[in-house]
């Protein structure tokens, strides 16, 4: 469960999130769409305090942080509640695929190496990359790196996974393999997922709820049907139409 109350993020004079309120239920899959610079990634990064809000409260799986009075220990505790998949994969370059997946288990969860290796192998199988277990990130394609990134996020073993534009850095022909892995997760796990994406068709297929974030404000929110078919909001309709005419798969 995720709750954000009156979340405000400001970089200098620029207010990126304006008193954002949101509740996400357990097991819900929420897709966040909207124009670039609208605050989508900033919102996601607030949820694990990679970006520090100046005001507001965040509750993630029972851990509540008040931006005004937050301690380092609280941030550490909050981060244990979520896993994140990044736009640029952010695999640890000095480690192989399997070591990347084992890292959160060995270093953070203090699992034995043997146990962690067994879990990592099953996760490699799940993302279809067991044959790359000993490859370093630079020896893999973007799509493969992102699939390892997803396996690593699963290894963190939290109820919540945050996806920050997981396919935006990929060549178009590699997008499909990553999306299908995420779809498979949605189908197999009952995890809460927040997915920032530009892939409209994908958002429509996997999400229980779509948020449209623009200028730091949620300007529309609803089921995929409400957002894509009923066209509750003129601005959202225009955005989706533009994404469509720009060639993004709808």
């Amino acid at each position, binding site marked *: 469960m995720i709750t954000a109350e009156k979340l405000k993020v400001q970089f200098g004079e620029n207010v990126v999130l304006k008193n954002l309120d949101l509740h996400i239920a357990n097991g819900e899959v929420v897709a966040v769409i909207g124009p670039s610079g609208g605050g989508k990634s900033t919102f996601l990064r607030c949820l*694990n305090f990679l970006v520090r809000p100046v005001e507001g409260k965040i509750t993630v799986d029972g851990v509540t942080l008040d931006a005004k009075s937050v301690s380092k220990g609280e941030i550490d505790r909050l981060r244990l509640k979520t*896993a*994140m998949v*990044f736009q640029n994969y*952010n695999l640890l*370059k*000095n480690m192989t695929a399997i070591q990347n997946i084992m*890292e959160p288990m060995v*270093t*953070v969860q203090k699992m034995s190496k043997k146990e962690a290796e067994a879990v990592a192998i099953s996760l490699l199988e799940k993302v279809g990359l067991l044959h790359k277990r000993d490859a370093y990130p630079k020896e893999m394609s973007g799509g493969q790196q992102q699939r390892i990134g997803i396996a690593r996020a699963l290894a963190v073993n939290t109820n919540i996974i945050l996806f920050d534009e997981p396919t935006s850095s990929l060549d178009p022909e590699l997008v499909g393999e990553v999306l299908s892995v995420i779809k498979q997760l949605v189908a197999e796990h009952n995890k809460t997922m927040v997915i920032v994406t530009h892939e409209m068709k994908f958002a429509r297929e996997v999400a229980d709820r779509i948020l449209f974030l623009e200028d730091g404000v949620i300007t529309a929110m609803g089921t995929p049907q409400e957002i894509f078919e009923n066209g509750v909001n003129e601005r959202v309709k225009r955005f989706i139409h533009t994404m469509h005419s720009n060639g993004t798969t709808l």
Partner: protein
Amino acid sequence: MNFDVVWFVNLFPVVLPTLELTLNMSLLSLVLTVLLSVFISVVRHFRVGGLSQFFGAYITLFRATPLVAQLFILYFGLPSIIPAMKSMSAFQTTVLALTLNTSAFMSETLRAAIESVDKGQLEACYSMGMTRYQTMVRVVLPQAFVVALPSLGNQFIGIIKGTALGFTVGLADIMAKAKIAAALDLRFFEAYLCVTLIYLVLVMGVEKVQGILEKRLQKFC
């Protein structure tokens, strides 16, 4: 040509037994330099209050002054005001001077290398729940070392050659042996050519090892 080949060749067995001293000084200084440099670079990277400024001043001081002056101050100067330093041997003082001098350079190299590790990986570590310390030790430093390796190699070579200053405080290293032999028989060219060759071979060995290391580590950076 006034070059006594036989004298030159016979000098090697005289000088080479003291090579162990040069190697000991070099390796000990290298290990201490790496430890001190890692500590300084991490302190400076995190801008630890007080310590960071202190090391900043130290770096300026030791980069701006000659190694030989630092060695003389440590060996001849400071013991007169700090009695505890009187018990330090020439070997210890030379290692200390080399360590302090080289660390001033190496810590800056390492700090730049630490800062070159892309921030995305740090975010990934923090998002997994790793602490700043775990992130530094398991991810940042291993990558920073690879980035800094060519530079670290240079600095190690500097240390090896710097040990030659040991003879100025009375250490009988290869340089001192050659110098004594040269003065006795007035064979300066032969003597200094002999030590030059020894240093050359030594440094070529270091370059070789560095090359192998770089090749091996290339696969992830």
